[in-house]
Structures are given as C-alpha cells and as structure tokens.
C-alpha cells in the first residue's frame, strides 16, 4: 500500500527514516510514482551542503567519510551518506560494502546511511543518486556526503551534484604526467592524499600541486546538467522501451537478420518517424 503524495512529503520532511528509505528504493527501482513524490519534495530541497568524495577503489573513501561523519556530528550537524558500489556486469547483482567502514554511526539517529548500486551506469554516479540527494536534503540533513563508486580517470559526474568535491588519492599512483592529464584531477576542490605514511608522499604532493586548477562550476551549469541527465534518463527508459517493444522494431530486426535491410537505414526510419526535427532528414 502506498500513501499519497502529500503524506510521503510530510513524512520525509519530518525525518521519517522508513518513508525516506522506501522512497529512495522506489527512485532506484524507477517506480513511476517516485517522480510525483520527488516533484512534491522539490520545494524542500536545496538546503543541505553536498560533499562528493571520489577516487580509485581502495584509497580510503569510506574510511574518510566515516571520519567526516564523526567530525560533523561532533559539531552538532546531521548527516546523510550515500555510498555507491558497482553492479556486476554479468549478473546485475552487487555487494554493497561501504557500511562496513561506517559501523559506529549506525545507531546515531542524526546519521542516515544508504548504499546504492551503479546498476550499469557509468560516470560514478547514477540519476537515482541525484534524486536520493534530494530526499536526504528534504529530510533536513545539514550535510550530505556522497561517496562515488571507485573511479578511474574520467568519471566526474559527482562534480555536477556536489558543492564541494573531494578527490582521495594515495601515494605511488602515478607521476607528474598523470597529474597533467585531463579528467578527474581537474575537478577536485580538495585533494586528500591518504595513507600518507607510505613512501613517495612528498613526490605525490608535488605532482598534485602542479596540477591545473579546477574551473569553477557555476550553479547554472549544475542545474543544466541535472536537467540534461533527467531528460536523457527518461528518453532512454521510456521512449527507447517503447521503440524496442514495437512491431516495427521487431520487423526491422528480422529484416536485418535476413540481410534485407541494413541497420543504418533501419535506424533512420525508426528515428524519422518519432523525431520531427533535428537528426533525421
């Protein structure tokens, strides 16, 4: 049984953990009603300070988040944590293990920790994560810490959703050429060199200081990217499903398999029927 929209909003904004947890799940499962709930919650968002924590697997993101939670709680702030771990490309399953490092906060009423799986999304952050940030925000959390899946060089989605982005690194992960490259090292506001008791710490610090400064992401850019991602998500999930389930698609597929039609022409035909302007002629 689902409660109606205003009831959900009331529960979430009053900090009801169960309601918020269920809503995040609906968001993740792409339950259509979740969008209505999010629309209703939107006026209550925008108050939390969002911090993104990103970096390669095993550098200590979860451990850092654990420490940050402890610090923020010490200052009397409430905290929401979203921790993303990878989905298996083979089974679609996932092991979400970030809580293990944050155990000590599990009984703290002022902390809400939620694990999420990437579910096939690349870029380090899912659309669901963005919406989940809104839910925690509406719950009244002062700070929201978003720990991305372990990322490599180019997964920089987090920048669009966070006010501050922290990149966690460890010594020995590359020389000054790595630091010169585009991508993840451009987007950090704060660089944390973790495991600093290891060798090469001085070198590593020097490489990072030589890195280019991040260009400031404007509020407008952030909103724009959020909207683009949302539209993209809907197009992929709804319009694409509609196309794939159509008889026309099946026919085209059969024709391609029988070599009566090439996929390029088939694609043109499918697109031109649905898109009036733009890419199709």
């Amino acid at each position: 049984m689902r409660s109606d929209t205003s009831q959900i909003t009331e529960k979430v904004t009053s900090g009801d953990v169960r309601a918020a947890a269920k809503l995040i799940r609906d968001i993740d499962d792409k339950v259509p009603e979740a969008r209505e709930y999010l629309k209703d919650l939107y006026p209550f968002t925008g108050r939390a300070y969002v911090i993104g924590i990103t970096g390669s697997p095993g550098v200590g993101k979860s451990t850092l988040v654990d420490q940050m939670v402890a610090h923020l709680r010490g200052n009397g702030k409430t905290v929401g944590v979203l921790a993303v771990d990878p989905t298996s490309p083979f089974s679609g399953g996932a092991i979400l293990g970030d809580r293990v490092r944050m155990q000590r906060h599990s009984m703290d009423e002022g902390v809400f920790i939620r694990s999420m799986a990437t579910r096939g999304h690349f870029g380090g952050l899912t659309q669901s994560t963005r919406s989940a940030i809104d839910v925690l925000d509406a719950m009244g959390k002062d700070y929201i810490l978003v720990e991305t899946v372990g990322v490599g060089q180019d997964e920089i989605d987090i920048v669009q959703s966070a006010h501050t982005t922290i990149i966690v690194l460890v010594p020995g992960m590359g020389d000054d050429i790595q630091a010169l490259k585009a991508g993840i090292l451009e987007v950090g506001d704060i660089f944390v060199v973790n495991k600093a008791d290891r060798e090469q710490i001085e070198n590593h610090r020097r490489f990072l200081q030589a890195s280019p400064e991040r260009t400031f992401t404007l509020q407008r850019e952030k909103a724009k990217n959020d909207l683009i991602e949302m539209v993209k998500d809907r197009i992929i999930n709804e319009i694409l499903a509609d196309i794939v389930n159509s008889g026309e698609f099946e026919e085209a597929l059969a024709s391609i398999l029988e070599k009566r039609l090439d996929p390029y022409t088939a694609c043109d035909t499918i697109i031109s029927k649905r898109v009036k302007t733009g890419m199709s002629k």
Partner: protein
Amino acid sequence: MAKPGLDGHDRGARIIARAYRDAGFEVVYSGLHQTPEEIVQAAIQEDVDMVGLSSLAGAHMYLFPRVVELLKEKGADDIVVCGGGIFPEEDIPKLKKAGIKEIFTPGTPLKEVVGWVEEHVEPRQ
C-alpha cells in the same frame, strides 16, 4: 547480510553474499560484530527485503529472535529474516518458532540458499 554478536568469522557470510550477487541480488554487507539494534537500523535505512544472519559462535538463540523482535517494534516486520551457520539440531525449530523463516546449516548448496529466497521472498509491489 549481517554478522550479529562477537563471532568474528565471516567467510561464510561473504560466500553467501557473493552467491546472491552472482544471482543478481544487491547485497548490503554489514561487517562484523553488529548488535541486533544496528542490524535492524541498517535494514530499515537500506529498505531491504530480507535480512540474512550468519552466526557460528553459539549466541543465535538470543541474537536471531532479537532481530525479529526489533523489526516488529519498528513496524518493519515485512522484512524476512533468515539464518545460517552452525546450530544444535534442537535449536532450529525454536528459531523458526521465534520468526526466523529459514535456517541453513553447513553443507547446504549455494543454489538452494539462493533458490529459497527467489521462491519465498516476495519482491515489493
């Protein structure tokens, strides 16, 4: 997947977690030494369908029913609780009576453990 109590052996829990992962489940792993209160709190925050408790240390007669009890207290008794590990034969009916839906003992094929969930745990509407 949770490890209640002072039991520090989580190889079993990890293997089961991995079997679920390979069957397409999303598994939140709690880590070691969790109290029933912590497990229930995590289950609610994560809005899980099922809690799997692993215990090899003999405190299951207190820890397992306590998890069921706390879930009920929090109005979250729609979450199914299962257990796995080493238990004296005679404890198993008692655990089931206390609301633990199924108990898996050593030697149970992984397929069976995964299959049970697919059969008995309803995905939410």
